[in-house]
Protein backbone atom coordinates (compact mmCIF):
# COMPACT_ATOMS: atom_id res chain seq x y z
CA UNK A 1 0.00 0.00 0.00
CA UNK A 2 1.45 3.35 -1.07
CA UNK A 3 0.70 5.97 1.55
CA UNK A 4 -0.41 9.10 -0.28
CA UNK A 5 -1.49 12.33 1.40
CA UNK A 6 -5.25 11.70 1.00
CA UNK A 7 -4.89 8.10 2.17
CA UNK A 8 -2.94 9.27 5.21
CA UNK A 9 -5.74 11.70 6.09
CA UNK A 10 -8.41 9.01 5.73
CA UNK A 11 -6.42 6.57 7.87
CA UNK A 12 -5.88 9.22 10.54
CA UNK A 13 -9.62 9.90 10.69
CA UNK A 14 -10.43 6.20 10.91
CA UNK A 15 -7.71 5.58 13.48
CA UNK A 16 -8.92 8.45 15.68
CA UNK A 17 -11.70 6.09 16.81
CA UNK A 18 -11.20 2.67 15.23
CA UNK A 19 -14.44 1.30 16.63
CA UNK A 20 -16.54 4.10 15.12
CA UNK A 21 -17.93 3.38 11.64
CA UNK A 22 -17.86 6.26 9.16
CA UNK A 23 -20.10 6.95 6.19
CA UNK A 24 -18.75 8.54 3.01
CA UNK A 25 -19.76 12.17 3.55
CA UNK A 26 -18.56 11.99 7.16
CA UNK A 27 -15.13 10.87 5.95
CA UNK A 28 -15.13 13.47 3.18
CA UNK A 29 -15.69 16.24 5.70
CA UNK A 30 -13.29 14.94 8.31
CA UNK A 31 -10.47 14.19 5.87
CA UNK A 32 -11.29 17.23 3.68
CA UNK A 33 -11.40 15.14 0.53
CA UNK A 34 -13.56 15.21 -2.56
CA UNK A 35 -15.86 12.32 -3.34
CA UNK A 36 -13.85 11.56 -6.50
CA UNK A 37 -10.78 10.93 -4.34
CA UNK A 38 -12.40 9.23 -1.38
CA UNK A 39 -14.60 6.56 -2.96
CA UNK A 40 -12.00 5.01 -5.32
CA UNK A 41 -9.67 4.92 -2.31
CA UNK A 42 -12.28 3.21 -0.14
CA UNK A 43 -12.97 0.73 -2.94
CA UNK A 44 -9.27 -0.14 -3.11
CA UNK A 45 -8.99 -0.47 0.67
CA UNK A 46 -12.06 -2.68 0.70
CA UNK A 47 -10.65 -4.81 -2.10
CA UNK A 48 -7.41 -5.23 -0.14
CA UNK A 49 -9.39 -6.30 2.92
CA UNK A 50 -8.25 -3.31 4.98
CA UNK A 51 -11.70 -1.76 5.26
CA UNK A 52 -15.00 -3.40 5.93
CA UNK A 53 -18.29 -1.90 4.68
CA UNK A 54 -21.66 -2.55 6.22
CA UNK A 55 -25.12 -1.23 5.56
CA UNK A 56 -26.88 0.60 8.33
CA UNK A 57 -30.00 -1.15 9.57
CA UNK A 58 -33.18 0.80 8.72
CA UNK A 59 -34.14 2.88 11.78
CA UNK A 60 -37.53 4.10 12.91
CA UNK A 61 -36.23 7.57 13.86
CA UNK A 62 -34.40 8.11 10.59
CA UNK A 63 -37.30 10.23 9.20
CA UNK A 64 -37.29 8.55 5.82
CA UNK A 65 -33.54 8.80 5.40
CA UNK A 66 -32.23 5.89 3.32
CA UNK A 67 -29.79 3.55 5.10
CA UNK A 68 -26.15 4.51 4.73
CA UNK A 69 -23.11 2.38 4.07
CA UNK A 70 -20.58 2.59 6.89
CA UNK A 71 -16.86 1.92 6.59
CA UNK A 72 -14.62 0.63 9.34
CA UNK A 73 -11.01 -0.58 9.47
CA UNK A 74 -10.62 -4.33 9.74
CA UNK A 75 -8.12 -5.83 12.20
CA UNK A 76 -5.62 -6.15 9.36
CA UNK A 77 -6.44 -2.60 8.22
CA UNK A 78 -5.85 -1.33 11.73
CA UNK A 79 -2.46 -3.02 11.90
CA UNK A 80 -1.39 -1.81 8.44
CA UNK A 81 -2.66 1.74 9.04
CA UNK A 82 -0.78 2.05 12.34
CA UNK A 83 2.38 0.66 10.75
CA UNK A 84 2.17 2.93 7.70
CA UNK A 85 1.46 6.05 9.75
CA UNK A 86 4.30 5.22 12.14
CA UNK A 87 6.66 4.77 9.20
CA UNK A 88 5.45 8.03 7.68
CA UNK A 89 5.96 9.82 11.00
CA UNK A 90 9.47 8.40 11.40
CA UNK A 91 10.46 9.32 7.85
CA UNK A 92 8.93 12.82 8.07
CA UNK A 93 11.86 14.42 10.01
CA UNK A 94 14.27 12.90 7.50
CA UNK A 95 12.18 14.28 4.65
CA UNK A 96 12.08 17.68 6.31
CA UNK A 97 15.84 17.61 6.83
CA UNK A 98 16.32 16.63 3.20
CA UNK A 99 14.23 19.54 2.00
CA UNK A 100 15.33 21.86 4.81
CA UNK A 101 16.90 24.37 2.48
CA UNK A 102 13.73 24.85 0.47
CA UNK A 103 11.04 24.07 3.07
CA UNK A 104 11.68 25.39 6.58
CA UNK A 105 9.97 23.55 9.43
CA UNK A 106 6.72 25.17 10.61
CA UNK A 107 7.39 27.85 13.20
CA UNK A 108 11.06 28.21 12.33
CA UNK A 109 12.40 31.66 11.48
CA UNK A 110 14.78 32.13 8.62
Amino acid at each position, binding site marked *: MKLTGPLERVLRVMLADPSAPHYGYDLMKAAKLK*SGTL*YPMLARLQQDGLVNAEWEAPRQDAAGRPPRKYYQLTAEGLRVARLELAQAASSAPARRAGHGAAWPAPGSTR
Partner: protein
Amino acid sequence: MSPAPRAQRIAGWLIRAVCRRLPADVRAERCREWTAELPAIFDDQSIRPAFLRTLRALSFCVGISWTTRQLSRSARAASRRTRNAQWRTGAMRTRPPNLAVRAVRGLLIWLVVVAVVLGLIALLHTRGLPPSLPVMLVLALAVGFDGFCLADIARAAQVRYLHKWAWVVICLVQAPLGGIMYLSIGHIGRDPSRRGN
Protein backbone atom coordinates in the same frame (compact mmCIF):
# COMPACT_ATOMS: atom_id res chain seq x y z
CA MET B 1 -41.90 22.67 -3.68
CA SER B 2 -38.84 23.69 -1.61
CA PRO B 3 -35.56 24.05 -3.51
CA ALA B 4 -33.64 21.49 -1.42
CA PRO B 5 -35.72 18.40 -2.28
CA ARG B 6 -35.77 19.41 -5.95
CA ALA B 7 -31.99 19.86 -5.95
CA GLN B 8 -31.69 16.56 -4.09
CA ARG B 9 -33.81 14.85 -6.73
CA ILE B 10 -31.65 16.31 -9.51
CA ALA B 11 -28.48 15.21 -7.71
CA GLY B 12 -30.00 11.74 -7.24
CA TRP B 13 -30.85 11.60 -10.92
CA LEU B 14 -27.28 12.62 -11.83
CA ILE B 15 -25.83 9.91 -9.59
CA ARG B 16 -28.14 7.27 -11.09
CA ALA B 17 -27.13 8.45 -14.58
CA VAL B 18 -23.38 8.18 -13.93
CA CYS B 19 -23.84 4.84 -12.13
CA ARG B 20 -24.94 3.32 -15.44
CA ARG B 21 -21.34 3.02 -16.50
CA LEU B 22 -20.56 0.75 -13.54
CA PRO B 23 -20.49 -3.04 -13.95
CA ALA B 24 -23.94 -4.53 -13.43
CA ASP B 25 -22.97 -6.50 -10.32
CA VAL B 26 -22.05 -3.40 -8.28
CA ARG B 27 -24.24 -0.77 -9.94
CA ALA B 28 -27.31 -0.96 -7.72
CA GLU B 29 -25.39 -1.08 -4.46
CA ARG B 30 -23.09 1.84 -5.35
CA CYS B 31 -26.02 3.89 -6.57
CA ARG B 32 -27.89 3.23 -3.31
CA GLU B 33 -24.82 4.13 -1.26
CA TRP B 34 -24.17 7.45 -2.99
CA THR B 35 -27.77 8.61 -3.18
CA ALA B 36 -28.04 7.84 0.55
CA GLU B 37 -25.28 10.42 1.17
CA LEU B 38 -27.30 13.23 -0.38
CA PRO B 39 -29.58 13.88 2.64
CA ALA B 40 -26.45 14.30 4.80
CA ILE B 41 -25.15 16.97 2.40
CA PHE B 42 -28.46 18.82 2.18
CA ASP B 43 -28.91 18.66 5.97
CA ASP B 44 -25.36 19.82 6.67
CA GLN B 45 -25.94 23.00 8.68
CA SER B 46 -22.23 23.82 8.72
CA ILE B 47 -22.58 24.85 5.06
CA ARG B 48 -24.33 28.21 4.83
CA PRO B 49 -26.12 29.75 3.00
CA ALA B 50 -28.34 26.95 1.70
CA PHE B 51 -27.41 27.28 -1.97
CA LEU B 52 -23.84 26.31 -1.08
CA ARG B 53 -25.21 22.94 0.01
CA THR B 54 -26.65 22.52 -3.48
CA LEU B 55 -23.26 23.38 -4.97
CA ARG B 56 -21.65 20.90 -2.59
CA ALA B 57 -24.09 18.22 -3.73
CA LEU B 58 -23.31 18.98 -7.38
CA SER B 59 -19.60 18.82 -6.64
CA PHE B 60 -20.28 15.48 -4.91
CA CYS B 61 -21.98 14.27 -8.13
CA VAL B 62 -18.99 15.36 -10.22
CA GLY B 63 -16.74 13.38 -7.90
CA ILE B 64 -19.04 10.38 -8.17
CA SER B 65 -18.86 10.63 -11.95
CA TRP B 66 -15.07 10.50 -11.68
CA THR B 67 -15.36 7.58 -9.26
CA THR B 68 -17.61 5.56 -11.58
CA ARG B 69 -15.17 6.15 -14.42
CA GLN B 70 -12.29 4.85 -12.31
CA LEU B 71 -14.22 1.89 -10.90
CA SER B 72 -15.48 0.79 -14.30
CA ARG B 73 -11.99 1.15 -15.75
CA SER B 74 -10.47 -0.99 -13.01
CA ALA B 75 -13.29 -3.56 -13.37
CA ARG B 76 -12.64 -3.75 -17.13
CA ALA B 77 -8.92 -4.16 -16.50
CA ALA B 78 -9.59 -6.94 -13.99
CA SER B 79 -11.94 -8.70 -16.40
CA ARG B 80 -9.38 -8.35 -19.20
CA ARG B 81 -6.70 -9.84 -16.94
CA THR B 82 -9.00 -12.75 -16.09
CA ARG B 83 -9.85 -13.40 -19.76
CA ASN B 84 -6.19 -13.20 -20.76
CA ALA B 85 -5.30 -15.62 -17.98
CA GLN B 86 -8.07 -17.97 -19.19
CA TRP B 87 -6.71 -17.72 -22.72
CA ARG B 88 -3.18 -18.45 -21.56
CA THR B 89 -4.29 -21.53 -19.65
CA GLY B 90 -6.37 -22.74 -22.59
CA ALA B 91 -9.71 -22.34 -20.87
CA MET B 92 -10.74 -19.87 -23.59
CA ARG B 93 -10.21 -20.91 -27.20
CA THR B 94 -10.00 -17.50 -28.85
CA ARG B 95 -8.00 -14.59 -27.53
CA PRO B 96 -10.17 -11.65 -26.46
CA PRO B 97 -9.43 -8.85 -28.93
CA ASN B 98 -8.62 -5.49 -27.41
CA LEU B 99 -10.02 -2.10 -28.42
CA ALA B 100 -7.27 -1.30 -30.95
CA VAL B 101 -7.69 -4.65 -32.73
CA ARG B 102 -11.47 -4.21 -32.86
CA ALA B 103 -11.16 -0.62 -34.16
CA VAL B 104 -8.69 -1.62 -36.89
CA ARG B 105 -10.94 -4.54 -37.85
CA GLY B 106 -13.91 -2.14 -38.08
CA LEU B 107 -11.96 0.30 -40.28
CA LEU B 108 -10.85 -2.55 -42.57
CA ILE B 109 -14.46 -3.70 -42.92
CA TRP B 110 -15.39 -0.09 -43.69
CA LEU B 111 -12.73 0.09 -46.45
CA VAL B 112 -14.00 -3.19 -47.93
CA VAL B 113 -17.57 -1.85 -47.89
CA VAL B 114 -16.46 1.37 -49.62
CA ALA B 115 -14.51 -0.62 -52.24
CA VAL B 116 -17.46 -2.96 -52.90
CA VAL B 117 -19.93 -0.06 -53.17
CA LEU B 118 -17.67 1.90 -55.53
CA GLY B 119 -17.15 -1.23 -57.62
CA LEU B 120 -20.89 -1.83 -57.74
CA ILE B 121 -21.54 1.75 -58.82
CA ALA B 122 -18.86 1.51 -61.53
CA LEU B 123 -20.30 -1.80 -62.73
CA LEU B 124 -23.84 -0.46 -62.93
CA HIS B 125 -22.54 2.68 -64.65
CA THR B 126 -20.80 0.65 -67.36
CA ARG B 127 -24.00 -1.33 -67.95
CA GLY B 128 -25.69 1.94 -68.86
CA LEU B 129 -28.24 1.84 -66.07
CA PRO B 130 -29.69 5.15 -64.82
CA PRO B 131 -27.26 6.95 -62.43
CA SER B 132 -29.89 7.18 -59.68
CA LEU B 133 -30.07 3.38 -59.35
CA PRO B 134 -26.66 2.84 -57.68
CA VAL B 135 -27.31 5.76 -55.35
CA MET B 136 -30.70 4.34 -54.39
CA LEU B 137 -29.13 0.92 -53.88
CA VAL B 138 -26.39 2.31 -51.64
CA LEU B 139 -28.93 4.33 -49.66
CA ALA B 140 -31.16 1.29 -49.21
CA LEU B 141 -28.21 -0.79 -48.02
CA ALA B 142 -27.08 1.95 -45.62
CA VAL B 143 -30.60 2.37 -44.21
CA GLY B 144 -31.03 -1.37 -43.84
CA PHE B 145 -27.66 -1.76 -42.14
CA ASP B 146 -28.36 1.18 -39.82
CA GLY B 147 -31.75 -0.28 -38.98
CA PHE B 148 -30.08 -3.58 -38.11
CA CYS B 149 -27.52 -1.80 -35.87
CA LEU B 150 -30.20 0.29 -34.14
CA ALA B 151 -32.31 -2.80 -33.52
CA ASP B 152 -29.24 -4.56 -32.12
CA ILE B 153 -28.54 -1.62 -29.76
CA ALA B 154 -32.18 -1.62 -28.65
CA ARG B 155 -32.11 -5.36 -27.95
CA ALA B 156 -28.71 -5.35 -26.21
CA ALA B 157 -28.78 -5.46 -22.42
CA GLN B 158 -25.44 -3.67 -22.33
CA VAL B 159 -23.06 -2.07 -24.82
CA ARG B 160 -19.38 -1.27 -24.52
CA TYR B 161 -17.50 2.01 -23.97
CA LEU B 162 -20.39 4.45 -24.58
CA HIS B 163 -23.96 4.86 -23.50
CA LYS B 164 -26.58 3.23 -25.75
CA TRP B 165 -27.86 6.64 -26.89
CA ALA B 166 -24.35 7.72 -27.86
CA TRP B 167 -24.07 4.65 -30.11
CA VAL B 168 -27.50 5.44 -31.60
CA VAL B 169 -26.36 8.98 -32.44
CA ILE B 170 -23.07 7.71 -33.90
CA CYS B 171 -24.94 5.15 -36.04
CA LEU B 172 -27.37 7.78 -37.31
CA VAL B 173 -24.86 10.57 -37.92
CA GLN B 174 -22.06 8.50 -39.42
CA ALA B 175 -23.91 5.86 -41.44
CA PRO B 176 -22.72 3.27 -42.17
CA LEU B 177 -19.27 3.76 -40.55
CA GLY B 178 -20.94 4.39 -37.18
CA GLY B 179 -22.78 1.08 -37.44
CA ILE B 180 -19.60 -0.77 -38.38
CA MET B 181 -17.75 0.80 -35.45
CA TYR B 182 -20.63 -0.13 -33.13
CA LEU B 183 -20.51 -3.76 -34.25
CA SER B 184 -16.70 -3.79 -33.95
CA ILE B 185 -16.28 -1.94 -30.67
CA GLY B 186 -19.54 -1.40 -28.84
CA HIS B 187 -21.41 -4.64 -29.54
CA ILE B 188 -21.11 -7.34 -26.90
CA GLY B 189 -21.37 -10.70 -28.58
CA ARG B 190 -23.06 -13.74 -27.12
CA ASP B 191 -21.21 -15.59 -24.44
CA PRO B 192 -19.42 -18.42 -26.31
CA SER B 193 -20.10 -20.79 -23.41
CA ARG B 194 -23.88 -20.36 -24.00
CA ARG B 195 -23.68 -20.94 -27.74
CA GLY B 196 -25.98 -23.69 -28.82
CA ASN B 197 -28.24 -23.39 -25.77
